[in-house]
């Protein structure tokens, strides 16, 4: 029993906000530099990539559209793990992580929708159709907006943390729906072609730049998420420090 407590204690100790701030301070410059290098290589490879035999040059949109769509789902999955962290372990960083991730996820989801629309017009002949894949991603975007609104609806993050975590968990049902929508229903959107049984159906000349871009944007996500988490921790510190200052001022009204 005591060992369990001390183990948990150590684990929580390792991930306390102060340790996180010093860890982020060390790792962020390196992570930022690595992001820039990988994205630069990815962009260069994308420009060098040949045109698709059917889609022509518009296949270039794939190099940003697919990573954005992957990240929109990965970000939500991270927020779901954070929601479990809030509800089960009541970890102090879990709510910070979820709150910091939501706007970044919303931007990536919006970009997946916009770049998809700009790809759909020349290839499908339409900007938008209300089919399963497109609609479920649009619902994901609305979920992000709802979560952002909820995290900012209450002044005290301790109050909004639980409600946000429950909403995030409920919304997670949408992630497998998005992933399998192209298999379950007839949609205009093509089925999975990279992560599928039997290997990728994309030629190496197009797959390599796509993977480098995906790694680059994933690194960008983690860099931005860590920066936003650091901001959020400091914002909460400022609130608690202002509270202490106000209490001290109350005690000494003459000063």
């Amino acid at each position, binding site marked *: 029993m005591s060992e369990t407590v001390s183990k948990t204690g150590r684990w929580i100790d390792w991930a306390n906000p102060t340790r996180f701030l010093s860890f982020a301070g060390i790792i962020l410059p390196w992570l930022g530099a690595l992001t820039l290098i990988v994205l630069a290589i990815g962009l260069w490879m994308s420009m060098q990539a040949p*045109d698709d035999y059917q889609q022509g*040059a518009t296949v270039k*949109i794939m190099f940003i559209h697919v990573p954005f769509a992957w990240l929109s789902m990965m970000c939500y999955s991270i927020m779901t793990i954070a929601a479990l962290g809030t509800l089960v372990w009541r970890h102090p960083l879990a709510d910070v992580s979820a709150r910091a991730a939501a706007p970044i996820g919303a931007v990536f989801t919006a970009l997946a929708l916009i770049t998809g629309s*700009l790809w759909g017009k020349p290839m499908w002949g339409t900007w938008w159709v209300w089919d399963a894949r497109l609609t479920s991603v649009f619902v994901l975007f609305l979920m992000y907006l709802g979560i952002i609104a909820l995290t900012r609806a209450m002044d005290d993050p301790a109050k909004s943390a639980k409600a946000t975590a429950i909403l995030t968990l409920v919304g997670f049902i949408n992630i497998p729906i998005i992933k399998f929508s192209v298999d379950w229903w007839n949609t205009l959107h093509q089925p999975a072609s990279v992560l599928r049984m039997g290997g990728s159906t994309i030629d190496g000349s197009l797959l390599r730049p796509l993977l480098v871009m995906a790694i680059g944007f994933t690194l*960008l996500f983690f860099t931005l998420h860590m920066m936003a988490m650091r901001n959020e921790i400091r914002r909460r*510190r400022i609130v608690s420090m*202002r509270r202490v*200052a106000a209490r001290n001022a109350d005690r000494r009204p003459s000063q």
Partner: protein
Amino acid sequence: MSNHAGFIIAAYGVSLIALAVLICWILIDQRLQNRALQELESRGVRRRSDSKGAQS
């Protein structure tokens, strides 16, 4: 295929602008929080956890 160049440029352009706005927003937020934190520290305000310890 040149008639599709507009779609490609628009997709990359929108992505660049949106990500730039996101990065700027996070950096501005960082600046605001740092400034507020420094201002409070210069007034001698400490967090509860700091005042308990030997933090100077």
